[in-house]
Structure formats: structure tokens, C-alpha cells
């Protein structure tokens, strides 16, 4: 009876220690907690505390350092699949300036953003966590002014600020029954990280994100462009032009909703916008920046 009571106390103590570690988030506290558990309950109890903490870490959101590793690994996949970077320094600088201007007043302005042009003629753009944004040469050729470019880059920044890819990564991790999927796990199980990245890359590049995530990013793209002073209606004009070019049959769209749904979503979003709609297009600056460079 007395033994049971002390076991209950020890269990409560262990739970308390795990909670304390969770709240403080400190390695030293975790080690201290393991030490105390070892003294009172032996190696088994220490293991329980360590296991509890690891389990908690597996379901906690992904931190920025880990996000950077994920973002860079997925960026490698994007580059490998889309023929690498289109190496035109002046054009790259211009795309980076537009992107940085939009990111400045986005919902996540505090991280570094990196923009690159993909040497590919398809019409597409991608984002990977921690601020990596890609636009294909093919999409740049369809754009007619800086406001359209700002909204496209804003759409990708929206995926990053909403952490859409990280959400998929987290879900894959949990579906795989992985409690420990962070940097700690990579050292011990590199295949685990590779498996999760490959799975997420497939979703991003082949299957596409959830349609709701794409529509949310469309709304944010127009909003972020409007915040910095571009005309957000330019995004509607671009989507209409692409609809004319590519058609609107949902069966042909693997990675995005069809253009009509996207146009409706952007227009609904614009109706609730606080920002004035009379922004600028900056068509002249865009044309000058691209002239002879694509």
C-alpha cells in the first residue's frame, strides 16, 4: 500500500517534471528532471521522463532552426526538378527587391526571404519554409507589370507566413508515428528526415497543397501587394489572362484550384480589404527591368 502510494507520488513527480520541462523548454531542466527521476525511480523512471519529453517535442510546432533545414532541403528538390536557377543577376536583384518590398509588410516580416528565378518555361511558382521563394521564367514571361509580380510573390510569402508546408511536414511526421522528428532524430536516423522531405516534396511539386491553402494564399497575395501600395486588382487580371491561356477545366489542374475559383476568392477578399484599392501597377519599371533579360 505504502509502495503504491510512493509510486503514485513518483508518477506525479515525473508528470510534473515533464510539464516543467515543456514550459521552460530547457535542456538543462530536462537533464535535471531525468536525474531526479533516476534517483527516486531508477533508470526506468528516467527513461519515462526522457520519453515523455521526447513525445512532447514530437508534437510541438517546428522551430525556426529546424524550419531552415526543411526549407533548404525542399529548395534543393525544387531546383533539381526545375532545371536550376536562371542566372541573370540584374533580373534576380529586381525580383528580390519586389519580393522583399512585399515581405516587409507581410504577416511574417521578421524572417529573411530569398527569391530566385527557375530556368524553366512552365508557368509556376513555389515556396519552401524559412523564406525560399521561386518563380519560373515561364511565369515571368506572362506577367505584365510589377503589381502582378508582387501578388504572385505575395501568394508564395503567404504560404510561408501561414506555415502551410510545415503543417504537412508535421502531419506526415505524426502519421508515420514519429514522436521524435526534429534535428535530434536526424543525427540518429538520417533516412527518417529524407523520407519526410521526399514525401513533402511530392506533395508540394506533384500533388499540390490542399485547395483551401492555395485559396488562402491567393487572398494573402492580393492583400500583401495592396498593403505595400500595389493595385491588388492586377492579380485578378493576371489570373484571367492565365485562364484564357490554359483553360479552366479542373481536371487539368493537379496542384492548384481552377482559375475561376481563384479569381472569385481574390475578389471576395478584396471586398473586405481595409486598404484603398487604388494602388499602382508600375508597368514601366517592370518592363524596363525585364527588357532583354528573359
Amino acid at each position, binding site marked *: 500500500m505504502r509502495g503504491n502510494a510512493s509510486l503514485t507520488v513518483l508518477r506525479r513527480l515525473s508528470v510534473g517534471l515533464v510539464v516543467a520541462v*515543456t*514550459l*521552460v*523548454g*530547457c*535542456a538543462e531542466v*530536462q*537533464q535535471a528532471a531525468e536525474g531526479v527521476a533516476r534517483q527516486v525511480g531508477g533508470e526506468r523512471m528516467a527513461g519515462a521522463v526522457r520519453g515523455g*519529453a521526447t513525445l*512532447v*517535442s514530437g508534437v*510541438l*510546432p517546428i*522551430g*525556426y*532552426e*529546424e*524550419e*531552415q*533545414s526543411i526549407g*533548404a*532541403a525542399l529548395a*534543393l*528538390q525544387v*531546383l*533539381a526538378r526545375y532545371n*536550376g536557377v536562371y542566372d541573370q543577376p540584374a533580373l*534576380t*536583384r529586381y525580383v*528580390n*527587391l519586389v519580393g*522583399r*518590398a512585399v515581405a*516587409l*509588410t507581410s*504577416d511574417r*516580416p*521578421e524572417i*529573411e526571404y530569398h*527569391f*530566385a528565378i527557375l530556368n524553366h518555361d512552365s508557368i509556376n511558382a513555389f515556396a519552401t519554409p524559412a523564406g*525560399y521563394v521561386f518563380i519560373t521564367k515561364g511565369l515571368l514571361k506572362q506577367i505584365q507589370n*510589377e503589381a502582378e509580380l508582387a501578388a504572385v510573390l505575395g501568394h508564395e510569402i503567404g504560404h510561408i507566413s501561414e506555415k502551410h508546408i510545415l503543417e504537412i511536414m508535421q502531419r506526415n511526421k505524426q502519421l508515420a508515428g514519429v514522436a*521524435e522528428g*526534429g*534535428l*535530434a*532524430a*536526424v*543525427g*540518429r536516423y*538520417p533516412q527518417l528526415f*529524407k523520407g519526410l522531405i*521526399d514525401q513533402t516534396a511530392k506533395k508540394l511539386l506533384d500533388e499540390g497543397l490542399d485547395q483551401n491553402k492555395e485559396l488562402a494564399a491567393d487572398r494573402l497575395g492580393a492583400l500583401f501587394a495592396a498593403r*505595400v*501600395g500595389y493595385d491588388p486588382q492586377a492579380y485578378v487580371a493576371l489570373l484571367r489572362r492565365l485562364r484564357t491561356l490554359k483553360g479552366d477545366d479542373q481536371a487539368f489542374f493537379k496542384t492548384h484550384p481552377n482559375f475561376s475559383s481563384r479569381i472569385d476568392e481574390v475578389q471576395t477578399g478584396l471586398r473586405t480589404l481595409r*486598404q484603398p484599392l487604388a494602388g*499602382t501597377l*508600375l508597368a514601366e*519599371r517592370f518592363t524596363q527591368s525585364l527588357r532583354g533579360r528573359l
Partner: protein
Amino acid sequence: MNVRTRRLRVCLVWLACLGMLVSEAYAEKVYVQSKSAPLWAGKTSLSQTVATVQFGQELEVVRKEDPWLEVRTSDGVTGWISANRTTTTKPSGSESLFAKAGQAFRQTGAAPVTASTGARGLDKVSEMYANSSGIPKQYQDAVDRMATYRISDQEVEGFLKDGRLGEYAR
């Protein structure tokens, strides 16, 4: 001065003090929702910059004249900021408390593979991934170049100014 007048004065002083305390407690606050933002001497970007405020910094609203806010920093500097660069709710930043806690746990056993962020795009973890996936060196170098490509905040402000974007439109 009779007793009644003296009491009235004391009462007024107390009321004034109370009013100041209440106004301090209920002073409207906004937070910088931009990586950094200039505080202008007047409600025009043609005026002098009096300070540069940083992401998440708390500002006390002195006056509102749409689309500008006159604000005061905790250092007592007063200036005008474009309302588009502020938010009424405190930004959480790139990492919530929970994300930081998760990261702290993950790092506990991660000594051999702790990411060396900042200097390169690829840290040890993503480099290991690149090698195990057979990603050619040229793409690894491309991610490095992307991550180390720098454009200063001043250059971005200059770009906004040239395009008459943001507060430079007015």
C-alpha cells in the same frame, strides 16, 4: 482661502492624478508589423526620419490621422508612422513559445548535427539530405547563393521610394 476651497482644490488634484493614471493604463498601443519602419517628423515621407522602429516594437498612439499614426516609443521619441506598418495585436514572431520549447527538446540530443545557420543556406542536416538524395553540387551551391544573397533594408526603402510605394506614395 477657506477650508471648503482648499478641499475642492485637493479633490481636483486627486482627480487630475487619477485621470492621468487611467489615460496611461488605457493608452492605445500598436506594434510594428514590418521588419523595420521609419518614424517621420511629420505625416509625410518627405519629412525627416526621427527614428527607425523594429518588428514587434510597442508604440503608444498619440493621434490618428488616417492613414498615419502619431506614436511615441518607450524612449519617448514621438513621430509619425504609416498605419499599414502597424498592428493592434502583438506579433508572435517566427517562433511561438511552444515552437521554442520543441526546438529546445530536439536540440538536447542533437549535438553532432546542430545546424550552423546564417553563414550558408545548407546546414549539416540539409547537406546530408542533398548527399543522400544525390542532388548535384550545382543545386547545393544555388541554395547557398540564395540564402547568402543580401539586400539591405535601406535598399528596399529606396526601391519603395523610387516606385512611390507605401508611405512614399503620399
